[in-house]
């Protein structure tokens, strides 16, 4: 088990390094850097001035060196121009003498965001908390309802209940967030239909979330993921219900209710657990769409802002965080699977 964990941890770190390098490489291509220069310096700079600006701010070094600087394994650049020393690590009150040599992610320095004019770590922290709040409610709504749907459909395979619930779950998987969000807003929040039960934006929910302003975004994300989990639960439940020990229980005269609740349910929930964990990357996507649609300023919203303006540091920070979330959930799902399934645990 320890060996398995170490191996997985090693792969995780390697994956995170590769991915952050890919993002670093793509955001640091020549045209993107020109855009950064024009944003930071002056939007009407000449081509030669742009090149100068890039050289003075350390953007002209080889890409691997710069990636190392960002990571904190290569000393930060310094630039001596007529006695004025500038450098990657020299900022605020620090001078060339007092500044540390390394200042990268490993030293806890994620750099500054270009668009928000703030430290990336603060921004990511605040936005992650917002998104975490959203995700918590999504999980609380999505997982129980999906499991109930799946178990109800799977316990009598082929029945009317099964048919209608399965079609319902297919319908929810066919509705991406930007479609269900638009329909939900139009029906429940617009003046055209006139129901106006909920608010069409969730901006207020960042400070104080109420049922009225927070239910629609939560429902929108939940709907898309729910169908998939429900179908997996249904398949797993239907398989368990045909197992020998269920037949034995039934022949013993155990009531149907007890068979489902005491014999089938536990075994049927192993497969959905993995699926729920693997849903996280999809949920992250949904979060970006829903946060944009409902104007809820979380991590997904920040991602769109950062990517739209090629805010390199913020983009890197957000992608590292989201990739880590994905990898950690994959690890949890692997461990959980081993733990829940006695056949694997013992051998």
């Amino acid at each position, binding site marked *: 088990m320890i060996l398995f964990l170490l191996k997985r941890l090693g792969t995780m770190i390697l*994956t995170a390094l590769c991915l952050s390098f890919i993002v670093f490489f*793509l955001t640091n291509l020549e045209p993107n850097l020109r855009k950064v220069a024009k944003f930071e310096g002056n939007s009407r700079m000449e081509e030669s001035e742009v090149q100068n600006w890039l050289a003075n701010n350390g953007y002209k070094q080889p890409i691997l060196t710069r990636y190392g600087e960002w990571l904190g394994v290569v000393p930060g650049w310094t630039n001596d121009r007529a006695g004025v020393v500038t450098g990657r690590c020299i900022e605020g009150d620090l001078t060339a003498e007092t500044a540390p040599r390394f200042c990268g992610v490993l030293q806890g320095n994620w750099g500054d965001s270009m668009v928000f004019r703030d430290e990336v770590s603060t921004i990511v922290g605040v936005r992650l908390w917002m998104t975490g709040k959203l995700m918590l409610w999504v999980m609380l709504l999505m997982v129980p309802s999906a499991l109930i749907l799946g178990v109800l459909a799977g316990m009598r395979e082929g029945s009317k209940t099964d048919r209608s619930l399965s079609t319902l779950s297919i319908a929810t998987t066919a509705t*991406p967030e930007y479609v269900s969000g*638009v329909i939900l807003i139009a029906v429940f*929040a*617009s003046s*055209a239909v006139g129901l106006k039960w909920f608010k*069409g934006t969730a901006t207020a929910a960042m400070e104080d979330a109420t049922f009225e302003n927070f239910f629609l975004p939560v429902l929108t994300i939940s709907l898309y993921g729910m169908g998939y989990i429900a179908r997996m639960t249904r398949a797993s439940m239907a398989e368990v219900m045909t197992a020998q020990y269920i037949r034995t229980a039934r022949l013993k005269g155990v009531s149907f209710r007890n068979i489902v609740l005491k014999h089938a349910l536990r075994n049927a929930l192993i497969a959905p657990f993995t699926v729920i964990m693997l849903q996280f990357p999809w949920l992250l996507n949904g979060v970006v*769409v829903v946060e944009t649609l409902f104007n809820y300023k979380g991590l997904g919203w920040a991602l769109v802002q950062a990517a739209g303006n090629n805010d390199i540091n913020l983009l890197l920070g957000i992608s590292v965080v*989201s990739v880590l979330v994905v990898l950690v959930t994959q690890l949890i799902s692997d461990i959980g699977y081993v733990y829940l399934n006695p056949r694997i645990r013992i051998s």
Partner: protein
Amino acid sequence: MEPLSWGQIALQLLIRFLPVWIALIVTFALSITYKRRLGLYGKLFDNTIGMVGFGLVMFWVYTALMVGLFDWIVTHDPLSTASGMKNKVPGTPLRGAEEGEFAWYLLGGDTLARDVFSRMVEGAWVVIRIAPLATLFAFMVGITLGLPAGYFGGRLDSALSFAANLILAFPVILLFYLLVTPEMVETGIPSYMGVVLFLFPIIFLTVLVNARYRTQPARRNVMLAVLLFVLGWAYLSVVSDPQTPVAFLPRDLDLFDIPGGILVVFVSVVFVNAPTVFRIVRGLTLDIKTRDYVAAAQTRGEGPWYIMLWEILPNTRGPLIVDFCLRIGYTTILLGTLGFFGLGLPPESPDWGTTINQGRKLLSIYPHPAIVPALALLSLVLGLNLLADGLREESLKD
């Protein structure tokens, strides 16, 4: 001219879609008559859910083809605006409609006073042109890499699996934002990715033919020569585009150029889908390669590529066909996502994602410009999912 009531709008819509109804009725009548002779496709017509799904999908396919090829169904030009039609509700009569021009905006006007109905049906043509083809390419890439990874295993498998997991760990939207920006198109990276990705169908088909006719060199050489000439020329024409850094083919030899943005969108959608297909094919191969008929072929002395492509691949068709339907739906959703964030396709493009994005700004006052394409996308994806479900059920029966 009076505004139309909801009943009249529904009637007019039915009339506009008349050619589609006729085509659908003909398709269903023929298929149901001959369903015993049509294999898996015929069995679909024993399954209510599958039939509903097939109907929905074919409705959009016929609509797209009739709009794209014959210019039927559309009532107005999807890009032109009409005065006084801004944000008008469905059924509003067109002010000063000329003779021979359709006199109403059936499903209302959008924020730029364009006809919502015409944009919706034109959007179908954009989606139907890109989604199935992109999915097919993703399948070719996934199959060409997944078969050897599962069959040979070892280092090759580890390396390819690592790369696939790498792409899958990316949030899709981040990847789109990194690949589909004007700056990125300027560097040519999407074009270079296209150069690599479009190579896979050629490799796939060449190996397929070569493995089959290896024992008859004369026939194989002719077939390969024709195949490579046709595909090679098509490949060079697709890849070479004077607008991008990859432009090497002289103008006279260049058969066609793909209009701006579409190639980039196409490449990134293939890139996102291929790793999942790879994983599925690899898993299926791992399972099937232990079967007796594979061992028999190995004993017979068949080459590894023959075994992979002509013994293993045909036996994975069930799950792959089902996944193909599901994946077209997913690709449609991805295209919509791209449009929703205003990436890739030009802002006036009538595709559903872009239209939803433009309509959502005034959603709480005028919901119809966003609702119409949203429902269209929903019905197409729902149809594909139901079709996949029906196919799965029918293919499991035997």
